[in-house]
């Protein structure tokens, strides 16, 4: 097993063992942690982790291998995957390869034998920070070069599909899924409910989308800072005027920005499968899967037509919004789960059912 070096922007450094891809040259990433005990395959393949390095807080990773069904995208965009212990002898009836092989195929760096709890606490106290992973020890000047490079903000462009693709379902309600880096299970959740889905690149024009004559629009999850794609906001505004719209994660933030609210980078975000969300309308708490580093600022909602429908029980950040007059609403978390609890899957049912009423005909 060869060594890998993990350097943090705060000056800390760790030595671990390599699995998966071994970097030819040092690579800069944003360091975040995820507290899910299950679902590493879904997490690694979630495009929202583009350019990031994930620390898994659960110490044993790779136990059930990698299978053919559970990837959330064909090409993962993650940079590096950090665990306490990597397991190269998976055991599960669906496992087709071990995690190391999978990471190698997709050129994702794996590093283990690291005190991941210590790393997690650093991120918790100091906030998300930059890190460099290298096969060789690096000098201070090399490192300072790396850390002074501004972190890229073009992740959505990187991960969004380049061409429109259609998943036909005869007689199904047509949904346009705007792709900021969608997880496969959002698409699957729609298809499973009989929808006819057209996935479009994130910067597709309103006219193009309208041409498909959809019954509803879904804005997907995606990586990075929502403000990096402010150019799409006018399109989103037009879309919500014309079609019922349901937005998830990055989609939720873009929905908020399009309606005049503001977003802010969180100290270390929410990433995990155990986040309690208080649904204010139902007065009930749902356990949700989350993965976001930005959130909508509550104090920016005053002048907008948006109202808060759900909040995080622990830190009270906004987890759900709805438009006061239009049939448009959003959630910050992942109702499609995968990985994580299925508690909020009903949101898809509710959205799709609502589409049968022709809400725009009355207007």
């Amino acid at each position, binding site marked *: 097993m060869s060594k890998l070096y993990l350097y943090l922007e705060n000056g800390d450094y760790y030595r671990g063992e390599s699995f998966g891809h071994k970097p030819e040259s040092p690579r800069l990433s944003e360091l975040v942690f995820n507290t899910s005990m*299950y679902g590493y395959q879904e997490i690694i393949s979630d495009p929202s982790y583009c350019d990031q390095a994930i620390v898994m807080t659960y110490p044993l990773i790779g*136990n*059930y291998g990698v299978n053919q069904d559970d990837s959330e995208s064909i090409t993962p965009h993650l940079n590096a995957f950090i665990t*306490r212990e990597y397991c190269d002898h998976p*055991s599960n009836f669906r496992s087709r390869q071990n995690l190391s092989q999978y990471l190698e195929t997709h050129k994702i760096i794996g590093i283990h034998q690291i005190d991941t709890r210590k790393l*997690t*606490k650093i991120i918790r106290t100091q906030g998300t920070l930059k890190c460099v992973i290298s096969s060789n020890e690096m000098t201070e000047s090399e490192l300072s070069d790396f850390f002074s490079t501004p972190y890229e903000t073009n992740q959505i462009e990187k991960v969004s599909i380049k061409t429109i693709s259609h998943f036909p379902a005869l007689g199904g309600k047509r949904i346009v899924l705007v792709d900021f880096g969608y997880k496969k299970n959002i698409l699957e959740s729609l298809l499973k409910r009989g929808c006819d889905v057209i996935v479009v690149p994130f910067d597709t024009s309103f006219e193009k989308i309208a041409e498909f004559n959809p019954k509803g629009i879904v804005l997907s999850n995606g990586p990075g800072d929502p403000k990096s794609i402010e150019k799409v906001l006018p399109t989103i505004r037009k879309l919500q005027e014309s079609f019922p719209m349901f937005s998830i994660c990055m989609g939720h933030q873009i929905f908020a920005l399009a309606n005049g609210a503001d977003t802010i980078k969180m100290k270390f975000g929410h990433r995990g499968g155990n986040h309690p969300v208080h649904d204010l309308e139902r007065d009930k708490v749902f356990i949700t899967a989350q993965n976001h580093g930005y959130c909508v600022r509550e104090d920016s909602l005053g002048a907008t037509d948006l109202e808060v429908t759900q909040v995080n029980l622990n830190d009270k950040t906004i987890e759900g919004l709805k438009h006061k007059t239009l049939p448009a609403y959003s959630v910050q978390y992942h109702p499609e789960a995968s990985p994580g609890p299925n508690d909020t899957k009903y949101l898809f049912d509710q959205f799709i059912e609502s589409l049968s009423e022709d809400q725009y005909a009355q207007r």
Partner: protein
Amino acid sequence: MPKDNSLKKVLVIGSGPIIIGQAAEFDYSGSQALRALREEGIETVLINSNPATIMTDKEMADKVYLEPLTVEFVKKIIVKERPDAVLPTLGGQTGLNLALQIEREGFLTQQGVKLLGVNLNTIEQAEDRQMFKELMIELGEPVPESKTVSNLKSALDFKEEVGLPLIIRPAFTLGGTGGGIAHTEEEFERIVKSGLDNSPITQCLIEKSIAGFKEVEYEIIRDAKDNCIVVCNMENLDPVGVHTGDSIVVAPSQTLSDKDHQMLRDCSLKIIRALKIQGGCNVQLALDPHSFQYYVIEVNPRVSRSSALASKATGYPIAQIATKIAIGYSMDEIMNPITKNTYACFEPTLDYVVTKIPRWPFDKFHSADRSLGTQMKATGEVMGIGRTFEDSLLKCVRGLEIKRCHLELEPNKNFSTEELLEKIIHPTDERIFEVSELIRRDISIHDIYDRTKIDLWFLQKIKNIIDLEKQISTSKLTAEFVQRLKIMGFSDEYLSKKLDLTEIEWRDKRNQLGVHAKFKMVDTCAAEFESHTPYYYSTFEDENELEKPEQETVLVLGSGPIRIGQGVEFDYATVHAIKAIKELGMRAIVINNNPETVSTDFNTSDALYFEAVTFEDVMNIIDYEKPKGVICQFGGQTAINLIDILDKAGVNIIGTGYESTDKAENRDRFEKALKDLEIAQPIGTTVSSLEEAVKVATELNYPLMLRPSYVIGGQAMQIVYEQSELEEYINFAMEVWPGQPVLMDRYMIGLEVEVDAICDGEDVFIPGIMEHIERSGIHSGDSFAVYPPQTVSEKVKEDLVKTTIKIARDFKVKGLINIQFIIKKEKVYVLEVNPRSSRTVPFLSKVTEIPMAKIATKAILGKSLKSQGYPTGIQAEGKLISIKAPVFSFSKLRNVDSALGPEMKSTGEAMGRDTSMQKALNKAFKAAGIDFPRYGTILATIADKHKDETLEMIKRFHECGFNFMATKGTAKLLRENSIPVKEVEKIGRSNRDLLDEIKDGNVNIIINTISRGKNVESDGFKIRRAAVENGVVCMTSLDTTWALLKAIEINSLGTIAL
């Protein structure tokens, strides 16, 4: 939903005595419940018959009733106390069943008392097999296909339908007699026939066998708002087929993908919602290792052993939250008690691995059937927390106190590989060691999987341990390699043996290499939020999270897993010691590895170290904490056994130390000490060889009492009557305890008396004397004990007090001391001195209202007895009579003889207290679960030597209305004394013998004093087992029988005709 303000007073039902399947976990949950209710300003009333628990401490509730857990007494208390509600979900199956019974009778409704946390319908739906099956079908959740049959033909039809293997469960037979799993056509026919024969209603349940499936458990909580969360999921290393209480269990599940996990999570939540439980619930599921097919096995609509384990494994206190929910709160209104800054309505996430290994009583019961199946046999369990699975597993192995510090069991080396491969097919407590030995012999894990169905993931992890083990002799001991060994959980004890060093030498070497243990926190949230609860485990990684405040600190050693001879009594004392240290303004920290207990509740101490109670783990804590000292006298033999090595390592032992302990436990020193003090003791000596033993025996004369030195609970203690028995015993002892001398005493028959006292080095305070109902020869833990003594003269009492004071001072005891005496012809003999907390400390503390463990702790920390108000002498006796009754778990253990003797067999205790001896006895028997009849038939099988003594007793039973059944000899005696008797045949002498009478329910009480000993083929043994299996009261001591008679007499009419 806020608190229900109509609740001003709540009755909590406890779980009673410790039995297999219902142990200290309910002391933990009950204590949490009482505290949670108090926090809300609700007045609490508790009923629990178990004096050994923390929850029955006076200060735990506003009113504590140490009364029998029967419908009669629960009703009496409700009528007297008029609570607004009853909380029954924290007292195990006992609590739930009691609540169910009184609710069914309409008693609660009639009294206007609410039932909290659960309703009748829920309990029935969860517990009634048929109703449960119907509910699952309604929910679309799969249960194993099954059919009730009453003849072979319908059984065969069902077999055609679903195929083999099938499980056959005969109806209404205890312990599944006559049933089994059928893999072949022949087996199926044979077992169905035997099952139908054995069932009194000729009925069997035939169920599709899912043995070999993965067994997964979900611990869930729901509130009235219908918020539901999964606190923890757990995967059993042993697949379906072994009771979860007897399985090695891991949290969280390891071999489940997110899809597998979410599917089972969804199912569990669906079930708790359908049952409308408000509180904790446990769902057990079976998952096919080769598909998504799963089955629901069982649901427990209450907190359980698993929920205690889940609470300790995650840091999420299920019982506490369940209690808050029961009184109206929803989880989003309750703070997470461990982080104190997030809410209880979330799902804990772990950043470590937890393993639990059960602790079985087979070291005590050599004849017991060690096979593991659907009937739980373990008395306790240990839990290990690690950052690797290997570490958590090995922490458990060394913490079990079965003289193993590694996955290694010497006797396995004598088996051939073929034999071992055959052995692992049938699960026993030793399977994990057999599997390890096979891996050590390079047998492929696939071959092992084929035979055991233990998931390859677990087998590979065991292989990791063995692979690393093999590298030790060939590798250079670099810091890196040692670090690797340590994070994989290799114990210092094992490594030092392997490297031919003493453990202290090895430890120094490891420290020189810079390989030190680090401590991490259990925080429910994998470090996502800051946590404010000092709950730690050790690992060998970078960061140490320990925050040590500048305060004088005292380390208390816990007592490890619950086993026969070392039960919840020692946890009681440990908790009291912690409380006392805190009361003195010092910081109390504790080390223990038993997830069931109150001592491992993170609310108990100022810092909890969840670690095996071994030298290595204790020293790791001492290195960082640098406590003022360590207290060893409350943690039973577990802690006492460490005194020697801790002393050698230079640790300051607070209270009675090595010198005094050795003086009491080293037979030669002990004898000399008593001689010097001119205190009488039974004549005896120690022997180290068979020759010596035979020689000594002729000097002492039979019968002789034999025992190995340094054991607790009379382990392997035996009375021998002749040389052949002596030889058998000595050979056995030399093999099991090589190098340890055997103690040989003349067996002295007399009254047994026990004293617990406190000594601060000068003064000796005695709260009271306890008298045993049974004469010497029956282990004190299995005897009924009475306070205050009823038959001891004032003169003898004085002698007892004087002797106790003399011994305590001479032995330089600082803290608690327990002395066992025999009184013969008004003379006091000392049998045993234990310079530590004993099993009777909680009982005596409660009945005398002297908090002994607390006083002792303060005394050893410098607060003299005088200054605490306890001068030398004995406290005046109380007026009430209190009786401690032993409780046994024989129905759970096959092939164990229920005859009482010098080796302890009871698993728990209960108590009865009243104004007269008879009334107290009546309660004590009831509390111990001995549901004696008021009339009926007594089967008397009496040894010749006891016949005269029995006659008077039989006459009195006859007057109470009992009829008799006896074999020839005893029958003759009864007839000669004008007592009508039905003569029955001895075993095997006729088509119909006395065993048939027992099986057919024609016998209500058995008095049996014949053929004791280890022979399982003897008539006496067969009769006693038949009694256990048919639920018949069986008395094996005449003294206990007299006591029972007295209890029956007070219940009989008692009128005298003119």
